[in-house]
Protein backbone atom coordinates (compact mmCIF):
# COMPACT_ATOMS: atom_id res chain seq x y z
CA UNK A 1 0.00 0.00 0.00
CA UNK A 2 1.23 3.45 -0.89
CA UNK A 3 2.12 5.81 1.92
CA UNK A 4 -1.05 7.80 2.58
CA UNK A 5 -1.28 11.58 2.47
CA UNK A 6 -3.77 13.42 4.64
CA UNK A 7 -4.43 16.50 6.69
CA UNK A 8 -4.47 17.72 10.24
CA UNK A 9 -8.12 17.61 11.34
CA UNK A 10 -9.06 21.13 12.42
CA UNK A 11 -12.24 22.16 14.21
CA UNK A 12 -13.70 24.27 11.36
CA UNK A 13 -13.66 21.22 9.05
CA UNK A 14 -14.87 18.62 11.51
CA UNK A 15 -18.58 18.85 10.68
CA UNK A 16 -17.89 18.80 6.93
CA UNK A 17 -15.61 15.76 7.17
CA UNK A 18 -18.13 14.04 9.44
CA UNK A 19 -20.83 14.65 6.83
CA UNK A 20 -18.99 14.11 3.53
CA UNK A 21 -16.14 11.70 4.36
CA UNK A 22 -13.83 13.13 1.66
CA UNK A 23 -11.17 10.85 0.20
CA UNK A 24 -8.09 11.24 2.39
CA UNK A 25 -5.37 8.78 3.24
CA UNK A 26 -4.94 9.92 6.80
CA UNK A 27 -6.29 12.25 9.46
CA UNK A 28 -4.26 13.63 12.34
CA UNK A 29 -5.64 15.22 15.50
CA UNK A 30 -3.93 17.16 18.25
CA UNK A 31 -4.26 15.00 21.35
CA UNK A 32 -4.79 18.00 23.65
CA UNK A 33 -7.96 19.04 21.79
CA UNK A 34 -9.63 15.71 22.50
CA UNK A 35 -8.93 14.88 26.11
CA UNK A 36 -12.37 16.03 27.28
CA UNK A 37 -15.76 14.62 26.32
CA UNK A 38 -17.75 16.90 24.02
CA UNK A 39 -19.84 16.88 20.84
CA UNK A 40 -16.55 17.54 19.01
CA UNK A 41 -15.07 14.41 20.50
CA UNK A 42 -18.09 12.39 19.41
CA UNK A 43 -17.80 13.70 15.84
CA UNK A 44 -14.06 13.03 15.78
CA UNK A 45 -14.63 9.49 16.96
CA UNK A 46 -17.24 8.87 14.26
CA UNK A 47 -14.77 10.12 11.68
CA UNK A 48 -11.92 8.07 13.11
CA UNK A 49 -13.66 4.83 12.18
CA UNK A 50 -13.32 5.65 8.48
CA UNK A 51 -9.73 6.85 8.18
CA UNK A 52 -6.19 5.92 9.02
CA UNK A 53 -5.45 8.02 12.03
CA UNK A 54 -2.64 9.81 13.79
CA UNK A 55 -2.59 11.32 17.29
CA UNK A 56 -0.16 14.22 17.42
CA UNK A 57 0.44 15.54 20.93
CA UNK A 58 1.63 19.11 21.41
CA UNK A 59 1.96 19.30 25.18
CA UNK A 60 3.85 16.33 26.58
CA UNK A 61 6.97 18.46 26.99
CA UNK A 62 9.41 15.66 26.26
CA UNK A 63 12.39 17.92 26.94
CA UNK A 64 11.31 18.88 30.46
CA UNK A 65 13.94 18.14 33.11
CA UNK A 66 11.24 17.39 35.67
CA UNK A 67 9.93 14.55 33.54
CA UNK A 68 6.46 14.00 32.17
CA UNK A 69 3.34 15.26 33.93
CA UNK A 70 1.75 12.04 35.19
CA UNK A 71 -1.82 13.32 34.93
CA UNK A 72 -1.38 14.54 31.37
CA UNK A 73 0.40 11.35 30.38
CA UNK A 74 -2.48 9.29 31.75
CA UNK A 75 -5.03 11.29 29.75
CA UNK A 76 -3.05 10.99 26.51
CA UNK A 77 -2.57 7.26 27.15
CA UNK A 78 -6.32 6.80 27.62
CA UNK A 79 -7.02 8.63 24.34
CA UNK A 80 -4.48 6.53 22.44
CA UNK A 81 -5.92 3.36 23.93
CA UNK A 82 -9.40 4.37 22.90
CA UNK A 83 -8.61 5.52 19.36
CA UNK A 84 -5.92 2.93 18.52
CA UNK A 85 -4.31 5.27 15.99
CA UNK A 86 -1.79 4.17 13.38
CA UNK A 87 0.69 6.84 14.51
CA UNK A 88 1.43 8.76 17.72
CA UNK A 89 3.85 11.66 17.97
CA UNK A 90 5.02 14.78 19.81
CA UNK A 91 7.88 17.24 19.40
CA UNK A 92 11.53 17.57 20.30
CA UNK A 93 10.94 20.49 22.63
CA UNK A 94 9.80 21.45 26.11
CA UNK A 95 6.84 23.52 27.23
CA UNK A 96 6.54 23.07 30.99
CA UNK A 97 8.67 24.34 33.82
CA UNK A 98 7.94 24.76 37.50
CA UNK A 99 4.35 23.61 37.09
CA UNK A 100 3.53 26.14 34.38
CA UNK A 101 2.65 25.39 30.77
CA UNK A 102 4.04 27.79 28.18
CA UNK A 103 2.06 26.66 25.13
CA UNK A 104 5.10 26.86 22.91
CA UNK A 105 7.56 24.37 21.51
CA UNK A 106 10.58 25.75 23.31
CA UNK A 107 14.03 24.85 22.04
CA UNK A 108 16.48 22.49 23.73
CA UNK A 109 20.23 22.75 23.84
CA UNK A 110 21.45 19.64 22.03
CA UNK A 111 23.74 18.22 24.71
CA UNK A 112 24.35 14.76 26.13
CA UNK A 113 22.44 15.76 29.25
CA UNK A 114 19.42 16.92 27.25
CA UNK A 115 19.59 13.69 25.25
CA UNK A 116 19.46 11.68 28.49
CA UNK A 117 16.42 13.68 29.61
CA UNK A 118 14.54 13.23 26.34
CA UNK A 119 15.42 9.53 26.10
CA UNK A 120 14.15 9.02 29.65
CA UNK A 121 10.89 10.85 28.90
CA UNK A 122 10.36 9.06 25.59
CA UNK A 123 10.99 5.70 27.28
CA UNK A 124 8.37 6.51 29.86
CA UNK A 125 5.90 7.66 27.22
CA UNK A 126 6.39 4.56 25.08
CA UNK A 127 6.01 2.39 28.13
CA UNK A 128 2.79 4.13 29.18
CA UNK A 129 1.33 3.85 25.68
CA UNK A 130 2.67 0.38 25.03
CA UNK A 131 3.81 1.37 21.57
CA UNK A 132 6.35 3.29 19.56
CA UNK A 133 5.95 7.03 19.27
CA UNK A 134 7.56 9.43 16.82
CA UNK A 135 9.40 12.65 17.58
CA UNK A 136 9.13 15.70 15.35
CA UNK A 137 11.92 18.15 14.61
CA UNK A 138 10.82 21.64 15.74
CA UNK A 139 11.08 24.99 13.99
CA UNK A 140 14.02 26.82 15.54
CA UNK A 141 14.48 30.53 15.91
CA UNK A 142 17.39 30.59 18.34
CA UNK A 143 20.90 29.25 17.90
CA UNK A 144 21.82 27.74 21.24
CA UNK A 145 25.50 28.29 21.81
CA UNK A 146 26.30 25.40 24.04
CA UNK A 147 24.75 22.66 21.93
CA UNK A 148 27.37 19.98 21.43
CA UNK A 149 25.68 18.18 18.57
CA UNK A 150 23.51 19.06 15.62
CA UNK A 151 19.75 18.57 15.62
CA UNK A 152 19.86 15.60 13.22
CA UNK A 153 22.60 13.99 15.32
CA UNK A 154 20.47 14.48 18.40
CA UNK A 155 17.41 12.99 16.68
CA UNK A 156 19.41 10.03 15.37
CA UNK A 157 20.80 9.28 18.82
CA UNK A 158 17.35 9.64 20.33
CA UNK A 159 15.88 7.17 17.83
CA UNK A 160 18.73 4.74 18.40
CA UNK A 161 18.59 4.82 22.17
CA UNK A 162 14.82 4.94 22.72
CA UNK A 163 13.64 3.06 19.66
CA UNK A 164 11.29 5.94 18.85
CA UNK A 165 10.42 6.90 15.30
CA UNK A 166 11.13 10.26 13.71
CA UNK A 167 8.52 12.57 12.25
CA UNK A 168 10.28 14.81 9.75
CA UNK A 169 8.57 18.14 9.24
CA UNK A 170 9.95 19.42 5.94
CA UNK A 171 8.69 22.93 6.65
CA UNK A 172 10.38 22.96 10.03
CA UNK A 173 13.63 21.78 8.45
CA UNK A 174 13.39 24.65 5.96
CA UNK A 175 12.49 27.22 8.63
CA UNK A 176 15.26 26.08 10.99
CA UNK A 177 17.84 25.91 8.21
CA UNK A 178 17.02 29.43 7.08
CA UNK A 179 16.89 30.94 10.57
CA UNK A 180 20.09 29.28 11.77
CA UNK A 181 21.96 29.46 8.42
CA UNK A 182 22.25 25.71 7.94
CA UNK A 183 22.23 23.89 4.60
CA UNK A 184 18.91 21.98 4.65
CA UNK A 185 20.24 19.24 2.37
CA UNK A 186 23.08 18.60 4.80
CA UNK A 187 20.58 18.56 7.66
CA UNK A 188 19.16 15.40 6.09
CA UNK A 189 22.56 13.68 6.01
CA UNK A 190 23.02 10.95 8.53
CA UNK A 191 19.40 10.52 9.55
CA UNK A 192 18.45 6.85 9.86
CA UNK A 193 15.91 6.12 7.09
CA UNK A 194 14.47 3.16 8.97
CA UNK A 195 13.50 5.33 11.92
CA UNK A 196 11.48 7.80 9.88
CA UNK A 197 7.77 7.12 10.26
CA UNK A 198 5.95 10.21 9.04
CA UNK A 199 6.31 13.55 7.25
CA UNK A 200 4.66 16.90 7.96
CA UNK A 201 4.17 19.71 5.47
CA UNK A 202 2.98 23.26 6.09
CA UNK A 203 3.37 26.85 5.02
CA UNK A 204 5.45 29.49 6.76
CA UNK A 205 5.63 33.29 6.88
CA UNK A 206 8.60 35.35 5.82
CA UNK A 207 9.28 38.26 8.16
CA UNK A 208 11.58 41.14 7.40
CA UNK A 209 13.71 42.05 10.39
CA UNK A 210 16.84 44.06 10.91
CA UNK A 211 19.53 42.60 8.72
CA UNK A 212 17.50 39.92 6.93
CA UNK A 213 14.50 37.67 7.17
CA UNK A 214 13.19 35.27 9.78
CA UNK A 215 10.86 32.48 8.77
CA UNK A 216 7.94 31.88 11.11
CA UNK A 217 6.31 28.45 11.21
CA UNK A 218 2.78 29.84 11.17
CA UNK A 219 1.01 27.04 9.23
CA UNK A 220 -0.86 29.83 7.50
CA UNK A 221 -0.43 29.27 3.77
CA UNK A 222 0.11 26.61 1.10
CA UNK A 223 3.31 24.60 1.28
CA UNK A 224 6.05 26.67 -0.34
CA UNK A 225 8.12 25.46 -3.30
CA UNK A 226 11.37 25.11 -1.33
CA UNK A 227 9.51 22.91 1.14
CA UNK A 228 8.03 20.76 -1.62
CA UNK A 229 11.59 20.43 -2.90
CA UNK A 230 12.85 19.37 0.48
CA UNK A 231 9.96 16.95 0.89
CA UNK A 232 10.81 15.46 -2.46
CA UNK A 233 14.41 14.95 -1.32
CA UNK A 234 13.19 13.29 1.87
CA UNK A 235 10.96 10.89 -0.01
CA UNK A 236 13.75 10.05 -2.43
CA UNK A 237 16.27 9.51 0.32
CA UNK A 238 14.21 7.87 3.06
CA UNK A 239 11.25 6.50 1.15
CA UNK A 240 7.55 7.36 1.18
CA UNK A 241 5.89 7.65 4.59
CA UNK A 242 2.45 8.78 5.80
CA UNK A 243 2.31 12.53 5.21
CA UNK A 244 0.16 15.21 6.84
CA UNK A 245 -0.61 18.74 5.67
CA UNK A 246 -0.91 21.12 8.64
CA UNK A 247 -2.78 24.42 8.49
CA UNK A 248 -3.55 26.41 11.67
CA UNK A 249 -3.59 30.13 10.87
CA UNK A 250 -6.25 31.60 8.54
CA UNK A 251 -7.56 28.10 7.94
CA UNK A 252 -8.95 27.87 4.38
CA UNK A 253 -11.88 25.89 3.01
CA UNK A 254 -11.40 22.13 3.10
CA UNK A 255 -10.85 21.73 -0.68
CA UNK A 256 -7.63 23.75 -0.41
CA UNK A 257 -6.28 21.26 2.10
CA UNK A 258 -7.49 18.30 0.06
CA UNK A 259 -5.63 19.77 -2.89
CA UNK A 260 -2.40 20.04 -0.90
CA UNK A 261 -2.81 16.45 0.29
CA UNK A 262 -3.37 15.29 -3.28
CA UNK A 263 -0.16 16.99 -4.31
CA UNK A 264 1.73 15.25 -1.52
CA UNK A 265 0.14 11.96 -2.52
CA UNK A 266 1.33 12.30 -6.13
CA UNK A 267 4.82 12.98 -4.91
CA UNK A 268 4.79 10.05 -2.50
CA UNK A 269 3.60 7.70 -5.24
CA UNK A 270 6.39 8.87 -7.54
CA UNK A 271 8.99 8.24 -4.87
CA UNK A 272 9.83 11.92 -4.76
CA UNK A 273 11.22 11.94 -8.30
CA UNK A 274 8.47 14.09 -9.60
CA UNK A 275 8.03 17.77 -9.97
CA UNK A 276 5.36 18.47 -7.42
CA UNK A 277 4.74 21.86 -8.96
CA UNK A 278 3.45 20.20 -12.10
CA UNK A 279 1.28 17.78 -10.18
Amino acid sequence: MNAPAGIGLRAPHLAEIDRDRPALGLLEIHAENYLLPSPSFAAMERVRADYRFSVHAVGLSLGAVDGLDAAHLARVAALVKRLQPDLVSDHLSWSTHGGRYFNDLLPLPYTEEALDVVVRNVDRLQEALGRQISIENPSCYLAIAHSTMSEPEFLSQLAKRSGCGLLLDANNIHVTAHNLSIDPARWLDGLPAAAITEYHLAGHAVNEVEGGTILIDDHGSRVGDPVWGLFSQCVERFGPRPTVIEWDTDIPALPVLLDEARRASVLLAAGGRHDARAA
Partner: protein
Amino acid sequence: MTPTRIAIAAALASALTLPAVAQAQAQAQAQGRMPVEKCFGVSKAGQNDCQTDTSSCAGTSKKDNQPDAWIAVPKGTCQKIVGGVVKG
Protein backbone atom coordinates in the same frame (compact mmCIF):
# COMPACT_ATOMS: atom_id res chain seq x y z
CA MET B 1 -48.80 30.40 50.15
CA THR B 2 -47.19 27.02 49.61
CA PRO B 3 -49.53 24.47 48.03
CA THR B 4 -50.28 21.24 49.78
CA ARG B 5 -48.15 18.10 49.43
CA ILE B 6 -50.85 16.62 47.29
CA ALA B 7 -50.86 19.62 44.99
CA ILE B 8 -47.09 19.52 44.67
CA ALA B 9 -47.15 15.78 43.93
CA ALA B 10 -49.82 16.32 41.30
CA ALA B 11 -47.87 19.16 39.65
CA LEU B 12 -44.67 17.09 39.51
CA ALA B 13 -46.52 14.10 38.12
CA SER B 14 -48.28 16.20 35.51
CA ALA B 15 -44.88 17.34 34.20
CA LEU B 16 -44.03 13.70 33.50
CA THR B 17 -47.15 13.21 31.48
CA LEU B 18 -46.56 16.25 29.32
CA PRO B 19 -46.95 15.03 25.78
CA ALA B 20 -43.66 14.35 24.01
CA VAL B 21 -44.45 17.32 21.78
CA ALA B 22 -44.56 19.66 24.73
CA GLN B 23 -41.25 18.38 26.03
CA ALA B 24 -39.72 18.80 22.61
CA GLN B 25 -41.07 22.33 22.56
CA ALA B 26 -39.58 22.98 25.94
CA GLN B 27 -36.26 21.80 24.57
CA ALA B 28 -36.61 23.92 21.45
CA GLN B 29 -37.42 26.87 23.64
CA ALA B 30 -34.34 26.26 25.73
CA GLN B 31 -32.21 26.00 22.63
CA GLY B 32 -33.81 29.06 21.15
CA ARG B 33 -32.68 30.97 24.19
CA MET B 34 -29.20 29.57 24.09
CA PRO B 35 -28.30 27.09 21.42
CA VAL B 36 -24.99 25.74 22.70
CA GLU B 37 -25.07 23.00 20.14
CA LYS B 38 -25.99 25.33 17.34
CA CYS B 39 -23.57 27.97 18.53
CA PHE B 40 -20.48 25.83 18.78
CA GLY B 41 -21.67 22.90 16.73
CA VAL B 42 -18.94 20.32 16.86
CA SER B 43 -16.35 22.84 15.86
CA LYS B 44 -15.35 24.20 19.22
CA ALA B 45 -12.45 21.89 20.11
CA GLY B 46 -9.31 23.56 18.89
CA GLN B 47 -7.62 25.63 21.54
CA ASN B 48 -4.39 23.65 21.22
CA ASP B 49 -2.30 23.92 18.08
CA CYS B 50 1.37 23.79 17.21
CA GLN B 51 2.14 26.65 14.85
CA THR B 52 3.99 29.82 15.76
CA ASP B 53 1.85 32.93 15.95
CA THR B 54 2.33 34.96 12.78
CA SER B 55 2.89 38.22 14.57
CA SER B 56 5.39 36.78 17.04
CA CYS B 57 8.19 38.18 14.99
CA ALA B 58 7.25 41.72 15.89
CA GLY B 59 9.72 42.67 18.53
CA THR B 60 12.73 40.80 17.25
CA SER B 61 14.62 43.98 16.67
CA LYS B 62 16.50 44.83 19.85
CA LYS B 63 14.68 47.98 20.82
CA ASP B 64 11.25 46.55 20.43
CA ASN B 65 10.65 44.95 23.76
CA GLN B 66 7.70 47.21 24.42
CA PRO B 67 4.28 45.65 24.54
CA ASP B 68 1.79 46.71 21.91
CA ALA B 69 0.46 50.21 22.39
CA TRP B 70 -2.43 50.33 24.85
CA ILE B 71 -5.76 50.57 23.10
CA ALA B 72 -7.74 52.33 25.77
CA VAL B 73 -11.31 51.61 24.81
CA PRO B 74 -13.20 48.34 24.47
CA LYS B 75 -14.81 48.47 21.05
CA GLY B 76 -17.28 45.72 20.29
CA THR B 77 -20.85 44.79 21.03
CA CYS B 78 -20.49 46.57 24.39
CA GLN B 79 -21.57 49.63 22.43
CA LYS B 80 -25.04 48.09 22.33
CA ILE B 81 -25.23 47.77 26.11
CA VAL B 82 -26.71 50.90 27.64
CA GLY B 83 -28.11 52.22 30.86
CA GLY B 84 -27.20 51.55 34.43
CA VAL B 85 -28.34 49.27 37.13
CA VAL B 86 -31.06 50.45 39.39
CA LYS B 87 -29.53 50.23 42.82
CA GLY B 88 -31.60 47.86 44.83
